[in-house]
């Protein structure tokens, strides 16, 4: 299959991007300044991320759709306010995670943002589960960019007036060059920011205007270090079909209201795990010193027993040190538990820590 290009491909080239293939797309891994500078620029100023490879699934419908989606997602969608968003997952009957996603209630139905590598499969699963009752569009005609970091609100508001009044995890339709753009105040970096859904033909112009106002394009490399410092999961690494939301330590994203009734896909396992506990759980892991423990690194306890594995690990530029997360046996998941990480045949000391590694207060409206 030929690799696809996003509508910002030319702009990426103009900005000297290095490209990698990611989920079937040619995506920028970094630009000329490099991952560390791009990471810091996002934390201190404002960075723009091309996330057009992600799926934008519009499902059209009313009350019936809400009821049907509640059979799928562990969310209280009935009481979700118009234009408000929730983080959630598409699970199988064993509560294994097919994908993690952001779902937003719109006037016409719902907008679901899906991972690039999962979107086609998600579409198939959802179409089947919804029995073809609703119009579903996995929109290839719209691009998606994220603008993240402390200066982003001011910069974006200078181009699209009014966005600065959005609350965290809520959105609305705005206008750019007579085009309808859907903007939510959200992101995946641990910074204040926005995600903008805009017609392919206008994304280049919008992005260039944001760059002119002081933001910069940031590659997938820095997106990864930013999300990991923020303690956020990457599907296919920290989450997959062999892990449940409870094991992934994401039970905060499951509606309490819905658990009491338990009538969604995977609810039997979720309820059982919430009551009985889990055997493995996702934790933050801080290596001592500078050693970097990457994905698949084995984790040992103090008696040299294998107790788990790293699922994401890198160097955190804002933490100025290595950061990692992974799954360990539940009894070793307590904060400050000493563990050892096997890197290149040697065992290096580390400790279990709470997430995120890097915390910044979000804008008003946080829950």
């Amino acid at each position, binding site marked *: 299959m030929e690799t696809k290009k996003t509508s910002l491909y030319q702009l990426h080239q103009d900005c000297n991007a290095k490209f990698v293939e990611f989920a079937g797309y040619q995506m920028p*891994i*970094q630009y000329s300044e*490099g*991952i*560390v*500078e791009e990471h810091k620029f996002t934390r201190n100023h404002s960075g723009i991320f091309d996330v057009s490879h992600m799926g934008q699934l519009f499902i059209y419908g009313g009350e019936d759709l809400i009821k049907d989606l509640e059979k799928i997602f562990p969310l209280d969608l009935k009481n979700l306010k118009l234009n408000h968003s929730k983080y959630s997952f598409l699970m199988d009957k064993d509560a294994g995670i097919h994908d993690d996603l952001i779902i937003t209630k719109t006037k016409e139905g719902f907008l679901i943002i899906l991972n690039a590598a999962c979107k086609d499969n998600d579409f198939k699963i959802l179409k089947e589960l919804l029995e073809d009752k609703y119009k579903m569009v996995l929109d290839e005609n719209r691009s998606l960019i994220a603008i993240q970091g402390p200066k982003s609100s001011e910069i974006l508001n200078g181009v699209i007036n009014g966005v600065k009044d959005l609350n965290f995890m809520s959105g609305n339709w705005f206008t750019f060059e007579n085009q309808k753009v859907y903007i939510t105040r959200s992101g995946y970096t641990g910074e204040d920011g926005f995600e903008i859904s805009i017609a392919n033909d206008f994304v280049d112009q919008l992005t260039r205007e944001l760059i002119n106002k002081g933001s910069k394009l940031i590659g997938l*490399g820095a997106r*990864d*270090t930013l999300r990991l410092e923020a303690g956020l999961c990457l599907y296919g690494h920290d989450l997959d079909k062999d892990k449940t939301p409870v094991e992934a330590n994401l039970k905060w994203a499951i509606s309490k209201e819905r658990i009491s009734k338990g009538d969604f896909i995977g609810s039997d396992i979720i309820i059982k795990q919430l009551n009985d506990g889990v055997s493995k759980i996702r934790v933050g892991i801080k290596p001592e010193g*500078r*050693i*970097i423990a*990457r994905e698949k690194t084995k984790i040992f306890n103090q008696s040299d027993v294998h107790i788990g594995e790293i699922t994401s690990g*890198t*160097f955190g*530029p804002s933490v100025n040190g*290595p950061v990692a997360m992974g799954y360990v046996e539940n009894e070793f998941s307590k904060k400050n538990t000493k563990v050892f990480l096997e890197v*290149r045949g040697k065992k290096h000391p580390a400790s279990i820590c709470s997430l995120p590694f890097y915390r910044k207060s979000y804008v008003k409206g946080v829950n």
Partner: protein
Amino acid sequence: MSEVKYSKEHEWIKLDGDVATIGITKHATEMLGDIVFAELPEKGSSVEKDGTAGVVESTKAASDVYTPVSGEIVDTNQAIVDDPSKINQDPEDSAWFFKLKIKDPSEMDTLMNKDDYDKFAKETSA
């Protein structure tokens, strides 16, 4: 001081008497990106030509560092372990990796001069 030579694994080597200083090339650092971790061989250990003699890691991945000649490690550069970003800043001078007492001077003849290396680097990265 002799001419600086280069290996296909992107190390440079400068011989002074029977002690060689070894580091990685600017071209290597450009391919790696921001270097955030460096591990060096132990002083007093023996290394064989083309064997591993350290590790560098960027935010993206880990890469082995090889020694272009055999010998005994006599010194290592702790400064790049403490601050690996120095490797990106000055790879072919102050950010050297290790010094070794060479075992077989003829191994130097298998390495490239600057012109050949530049050509090799350009061809392999194209």
